[in-house]
């Protein structure tokens, strides 16, 4: 199965062509955010403040890397569990977010919002943080520097491997898996 090369930020057309189970290699830039940054972004949206980053067509990566060694771009950088971001995700999708990379189940509310906004949820392999770090060629803080490792970073990635779990048409790889391989 040859992976599809896609570019981030991710346009609506490309997003809607992806299907659950597709393997992709992502090239371009991602934003990072986990629990604390999600909380701030949604609070800003709720109070009508401008966001410190434009979310339109962006892919957000749920990651809390290990500290970089001197001279390294980033430490181990695999995905964290996505479900913790579920309460915040519909608001970010409504603000233009196009994709998310994490691991594990999304809530029914998030899965519906993915379809409604023509978005896509990818999983990267948990426990492959050292391999994924090598696919990150630059990292800079772009918002909330006071959050330290949880600040929003912009990562430049080259052939970053991920799998489509939830697509814009309601496809769900996790739900299909047991049906296909369960006995």
């Amino acid at each position, binding site marked *: 199965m040859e992976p599809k090369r896609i570019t981030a930020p991710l346009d609506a057309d490309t997003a809607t062509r992806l299907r659950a189970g597709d393997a992709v290699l992502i090239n371009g830039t991602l934003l990072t955010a986990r629990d604390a940054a999600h909380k701030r972004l949604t609070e800003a949206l709720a109070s009508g403040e401008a966001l410190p980053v434009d979310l339109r067509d962006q892919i957000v990566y749920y990651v*809390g890397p290990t500290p970089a060694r001197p001279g390294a771009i980033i430490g181990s950088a695999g995905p964290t569990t996505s479900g913790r971001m579920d309460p915040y995700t519909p608001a970010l999708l409504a603000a233009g977010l196009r994709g998310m990379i994490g691991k594990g189940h999304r809530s029914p509310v998030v899965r519906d919002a993915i379809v409604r906004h023509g978005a896509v949820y990818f999983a990267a392999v948990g426990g492959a*943080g050292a391999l994924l770090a090598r696919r990150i060629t630059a990292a800079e803080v772009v918002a909330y520097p006071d959050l330290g490792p949880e600040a929003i970073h912009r990562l430049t990635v080259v052939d970053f491997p991920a799998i489509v779990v939830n697509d814009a048409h309601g496809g769900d790889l996790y739900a299909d898996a047991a049906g296909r391989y369960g006995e």
Partner: protein
Amino acid sequence: MREIHVDRIAEAVRDACLEANYVAGADVRRAFTVAREREVSPLGQQVLEQILENMAIAEADRVPMCQDTGTVVVFAEVGQDVHLVGGGFEEAINRGVHEAYHVGYLRKSMVERPFTARRNTRDNTPAIIHTRLVPGDRVRLAILAKGGGAENMSRLAMLTPAHGREGIVRFVLETVQLAGPNACPPVVVGVGIGATFDRVATLAKQALLREIGSENPDPEEAELEAELLAAINRLGIGPHGFGGRITALAVHVASAPCHIASLPVAVNLQCGPAARHREVEI
């Protein structure tokens, strides 16, 4: 009486934390190699391939295999003929953790005031320490760096005798099913049976320390392990939940006597890709 300076405890803990995070155990590597040969799902094969490649990169770059470098759990057996000198035993363990997580560029993942401020303790302490006093003049330490994702999907049930063996099988399968992709399968499943509410979880955690592929000397536990492993691998969850035949690498059962009214069971899940522990004897 044999004197052991606690600095040796601190050093052993530090070195174990570093090695466990950078270098996959031989048993884990072997289990993944076998899993890659057995997995039939193409996506599952890709995941297993990435995990094996990740192990090689982590070791070469001295980068942690996983960004979640875990809570440090220590099982200590202290010989009763040992005299520890130079400071506190638990203090020394925590000093070892502090050093490893600083010098090794490991992520500090422990927070204090867990239900309010959740402030990071900034050195990954405190370790969770279980100590037993045993005959002899040695100190044995088993050190585990336990990730949060799989820990969050672990469960405990106070079953009753009527539930029996069948009830245990059902509870274990339900736990693995509910965890699905969140526990980073393929997983190692630690199952504690018996004892009390508090002890059964410890049995499950300690079971994770057994070498993958090792034989359980208790024939009844061994039979239950084989049955559970086969049943888990029929669930179809597969590597990382993308579908496949390899959902667990191993099931390890540890049981202990319990009250006539009780049948406690605990399931501690360990993500396979970051099954990290080391044993040392001083």
